């Protein structure tokens, strides 16, 4: 809502407050002022000029040489506008003038001819192009004939004004009008509100003699008023009206349309004007549309109507979509002589739905959607009739055609002063509460210590005692509320074990050298299932903004890998990222099964100590090591089993298993997937973190530190390339007996010194007896059993 302060002064005394100060008061008491706009933009030296003569420039087709009377003198000015003509009153920026955008006007020579100033368009005075009347959109603005030559344009045409731009919250529909803002300012400044005085001559003929009205949809349209004004002359509105509309962000058209828009801005009540002769039937019928019925609206769009949409008809065909937009078939034009002014109460839900259906939001629909004041519907129609008789020479037919079933009663809210103070945590005196309510023009009585408040219908946001608390608190001032803390007994607070463990995981991974990433949950059809641990149906948005963000992800890896590629494409060759977040699987009820996952993606060098010559590219075992250490940290037993997954290297992929369930995957990207993503060797991992973190961990009990030394024996084995270390380790463990405490691979050799298809693996075995120091014989005895078992399974002992 754009509020011209000069206009506002018609209704309320603003106490000569500087605009910024007034804006600050409004903001602090309830309605945010987003901007304070000086309409003069600091302009100076801009006057009314009279074009005495206008001839073509001999050297330039598009320029005219004008002799312009600017009051003190007649100045020669070169003008490039196509619509410049002799006899016009125009806006002249004199030499030395300052215009918006830091433009300074100087004497100049244009193609050899002197130019002493500039004839201006409205755009050059800082008015947005879309607000300039169409006739002047492409050229200079022509002032009315009676504009006084030499007079100051800024002062005389309301450009010495400041506009407050209000950022209205949906509850404050009352402030979508100048009168509504006047009530608000009146309450803040303790000033009275002066309503427009409505008076006009009525013709002897009645409106009812020319127009009949039928309302077939009283629920959607409980109040409809029509007035008829005839013998009007459609023309440009006077300057003051045009300027007020432009200040309010409305483009002037002609006096009829401008009057309806002016009253809309003044009262917040949308009006519509029909050309009576084009209606053709002398009847208005309000009904629901027939399914598939068509109408061409004022924006020249042909629109198909549905049965739930309300239309205004002439008894035969639609002439307007109720509360949204008029029809082209009954539009007011320069030829119009008789108009029907419609003022109505359309039910908000109906207008909202229709406006949404057609993608049409107008100044009218946005007010109906939030609910207009039923007590302003009739006054607004009368105000329009008055202005049409004053500005368009119209003859207002007496009376109106009315259908009225709407309730205009004021809401009664009862609240006790103690309740108000206890909810606020402060003491506001009863008298002050009364004073605030009076300033708001809420009729208030004190009955048995209770405030009994009649809320005017313009304030439909005030329904319950808490709403009254807000009114009193905001006008008393939020700064006055003390700062306290809740007095209830204190609770311990804290994280759940799950939340605490999530932080442990985070800290662990960061300690291991990974950066935490955050990616989007919405993805494309193509990426939604890639790397998913569980294959379930995907979930699609009803109305996605793009295909790229249309489906809920089932794996974190596709986006995490996109982030890796983003970095490598910018020459960050070594990247190690992790992310925790939900994946979205089909659930058992209407909601999804949201599973918190952990994903890691690493590419490039894992170890990079360049000047000491230590460089190691990342591999599968980096991630396996991270999972192993993480499982130790969390006290859960995770195992690994060889497996395969699309887009992972078939020989370098393992599933992570928890209690027999596959809850994760580790692997190197498949070379073709790496290529597709423009990556070098990259390893990835994804775990169902929720499955791990929901497990309860056992209490930690310490194991005694060994009191006796342990002894170790190494064994090197030649094995078939395909025998897994874990298989051999199992053989060793089961043969080693209770003295064998630990088995560890310490060397692997697969080079060309080995026979084809073979590899050498060396294990270090640790023997230990918690009761005593082991003797060499005891160890040898145990170790020989191990060696025998190894030979039995075909392992060749290497000397």
């Amino acid at each position, binding site marked *: 809502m754009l509020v011209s302060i000069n206009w506002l002064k018609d209704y309320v005394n603003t106490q000569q407050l500087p605009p910024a100060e007034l804006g600050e008061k409004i903001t602090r008491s309830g309605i*945010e002022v987003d901007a304070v706009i000086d309409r003069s933009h600091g302009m100076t030296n801009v006057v009314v000029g009279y074009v005495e003569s206008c001839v073509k420039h001999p050297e330039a087709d598009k320029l005219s040489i004008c002799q312009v009377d600017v009051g003190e003198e007649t100045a020669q000015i070169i003008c490039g506008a196509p619509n410049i003509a002799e006899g016009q009153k125009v806006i002249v920026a004199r030499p030395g003038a300052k215009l918006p955008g830091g433009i300074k006007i100087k004497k100049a020579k244009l193609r050899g001819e002197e130019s002493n100033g500039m004839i201006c368009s409205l755009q050059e005075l800082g008015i947005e192009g879309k607000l300039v009347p169409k006739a002047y959109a492409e050229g200079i603005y022509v002032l009315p004939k009676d504009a006084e030559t030499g007079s100051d344009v800024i002062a005389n045409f309301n450009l010495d004004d400041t506009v407050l731009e209000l950022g209205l919250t949906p509850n404050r529909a009352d402030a979508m009008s100048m009168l509504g803002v006047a009530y608000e300012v009146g309450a803040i400044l303790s000033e009275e509100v002066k309503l427009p005085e409505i008076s006009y001559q009525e013709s002897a003929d009645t409106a009812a003699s020319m127009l009949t009205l039928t309302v077939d949809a009283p629920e959607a349209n409980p109040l409809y008023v029509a007035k008829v004004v005839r013998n009007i002359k459609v023309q440009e509105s006077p300057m003051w009206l045009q300027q007020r509309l432009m200040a309010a962000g409305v483009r002037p058209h002609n006096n009829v349309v401008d009057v309806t828009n002016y009253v809309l801005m003044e009262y917040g009540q949308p009006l519509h004007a029909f050309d009576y002769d084009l209606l053709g039937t002398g009847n208005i019928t309000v009904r629901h549309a027939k399914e598939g019925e068509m109408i061409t609206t004022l924006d020249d769009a042909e629109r198909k109507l549905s049965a739930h949409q309300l239309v205004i008809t002439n008894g035969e065909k639609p002439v307007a979509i109720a509360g949204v937009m008029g029809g082209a078939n009954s539009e007011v034009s320069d030829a119009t002589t008789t108009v029907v002014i419609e003022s109505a109460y359309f039910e908000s839900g109906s207008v909202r*739905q229709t406006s949404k259906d057609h993608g049409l939001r107008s100044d009218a629909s946005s007010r109906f959607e939030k609910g207009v004041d039923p007590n302003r519907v009739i006054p607004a129609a009368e105000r329009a009739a008055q202005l049409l008789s004053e500005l368009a020479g119209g003859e207002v037919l007496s009376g109106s055609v009315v259908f009225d079933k709407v309730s205009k009663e004021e809401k009664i809210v009862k609240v006790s002063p103690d309740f108000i103070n206890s909810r606020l*945590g402060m003491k506001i005196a009863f008298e002050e509460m009364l004073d605030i309510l009076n300033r708001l023009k809420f009729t208030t009585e004190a009955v048995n210590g209770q405030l009994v408040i009649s809320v005017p219908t313009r304030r439909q946001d005030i329904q319950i005692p808490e709403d009254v608390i807000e009114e009193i608190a905001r006008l008393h001032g939020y700064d006055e509320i003390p700062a306290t*803390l809740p007095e*209830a007994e204190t609770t311990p607070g804290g994280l759940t074990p799950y939340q605490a463990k999530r932080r442990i995981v985070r800290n662990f991974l960061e300690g291991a050298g990974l950066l935490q990433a955050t990616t989007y949950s*919405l993805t494309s059809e193509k990426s939604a299932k890639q790397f998913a641990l569980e294959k379930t149906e995907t979930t699609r948005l009803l109305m996605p903004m793009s295909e790229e963000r249309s489906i809920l992800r089932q794996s974190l890896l596709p986006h995490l890998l996109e982030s890796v590629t983003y970095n490598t494409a910018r020459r*960050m060759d070594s990247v190690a990222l992790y992310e925790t977040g939900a994946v979205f699987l089909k659930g058992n009820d*209407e*909601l999804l099964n949201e599973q918190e996952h952990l994903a890691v993606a690493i590419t490039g060098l894992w170890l990079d100590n360049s000047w000491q010559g230590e460089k190691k590219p990342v591999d599968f075992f980096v991630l396996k090591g991270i999972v192993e250490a993480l499982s130790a940290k969390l006290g859960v037993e995770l195992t690994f089993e060889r497996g395969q997954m699309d887009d992972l290297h078939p020989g370098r992929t393992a599933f992570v298993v928890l209690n027999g369930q596959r809850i994760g995957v580790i692997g190197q990207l498949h070379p073709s997937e790496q290529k597709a993503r423009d990556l070098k060797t990259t390893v990835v991992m994804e775990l169902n973190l929720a499955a791990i973190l929901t497990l309860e961990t056992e209490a930690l009990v310490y194991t005694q530190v060994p009191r006796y030394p342990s002894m170790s024996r190494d064994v090197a084995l030649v094995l078939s390339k395909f025998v897994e270390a874990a298989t051999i380790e199992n053989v060793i463990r089961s043969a080693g007996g209770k003295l064998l405490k630990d088995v560890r691979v310490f060397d692997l050799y697969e080079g060309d010194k080995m026979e084809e298809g073979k590899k050498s693996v060396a294990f270090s075995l640790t023997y230990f007896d918690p009761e005593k120091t082991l003797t060499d014989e005891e160890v040898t005895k145990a170790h020989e059993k191990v060696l025998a078992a190894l030979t039995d399974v075909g392992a060749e002992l290497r000397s």
Partner: protein
Amino acid sequence: MEAQLQELKTQALEKIAEASTVKELNDVRVAYLGKKGPITDLLKGMGKLPAEERPKMGALVNVVREEVTTQLEARMVLLEEEAINAKLQSETIDITLPGRPVKTGNAHPLTRVVEEIEDLFISMGYEVAEGPEVEKDYYNFEALNLPKGHPARDMQDSFYITEDVLLRTHTSPVQARTMEAKGGEPIKIICPGKVYRRDSDDATHSHQFTQIEGLVIGEDIRMSDLKGTLSVFAKKMFGDDREIRLRPSFFPFTEPSVEMDISCFKCGGSGCNVCKKTGWIEILGAGMVHPNVLEMAGYDSKRLTGFAFGMGPERIAMLKYGVEDIRHFYTNDVRFLSQFQRTEL
């Protein structure tokens, strides 16, 4: 023989003084004190002396031998020390070379902000509550006093999955769920999480972002308690000399509703580009829980009251760290992420 002995001593001491390395000194030791050395020879030759002279002569030889030995040992200590020093000198490293890198990662800046806020409220007795990101229309809107067709639904254009299920547009449904689950009992929670709105991504908008909201319900919870709580938050998060101010606002789920500004932490209130010359920075929205919301969740709004507040970690991170584009939080450029490593304590 005595003169011969003195001569021998003088010679030996000279050689000791001349020796410049451990090896040379060892050669001197062997030459004079060794088994084939002149002093040993002298002792062997004592048998030829008359018996009465032998003790005297023996004593004399021993004195000389001891003195030579002492001098030699002293010289040896010196030379060994020199040798060690020379060796250490040759082992000098260039300490200006970089250290062996320690691999470190760090939390995402949004996690950093969220956890800082969580910890602050945990210290004030709050629990952390979480809920689903795909939510029922009921919890996201209806239970929060936003029935179907409510004009305020326009404020948050949403991603629907079915007519009744959508990506949550705020973390408030977690509050609605917690209230329903608590069955009318007092509550003190903080709810962080991801939320989604139908916005085109640009420097200040993101279709996915994070929120953190708080809810306190109890007997006699007052608006002053909200103000006091927010004041503690502002000071802990943005500095002890922060002041707060409340401005009236509107949210369907609170009444009265407020927006909270803090005095600008950059200029202190005199006006700068961070606060757009106003001296104040808008940080969060809050209010007293609307009685409809309490009643919908089964609370007796006459007996229990509450307050709620909500803020955007992105906005806080952008303000705190001077980040100019919200998309940085979702691009995961490591040159951005790794800047949030160090502590600010």
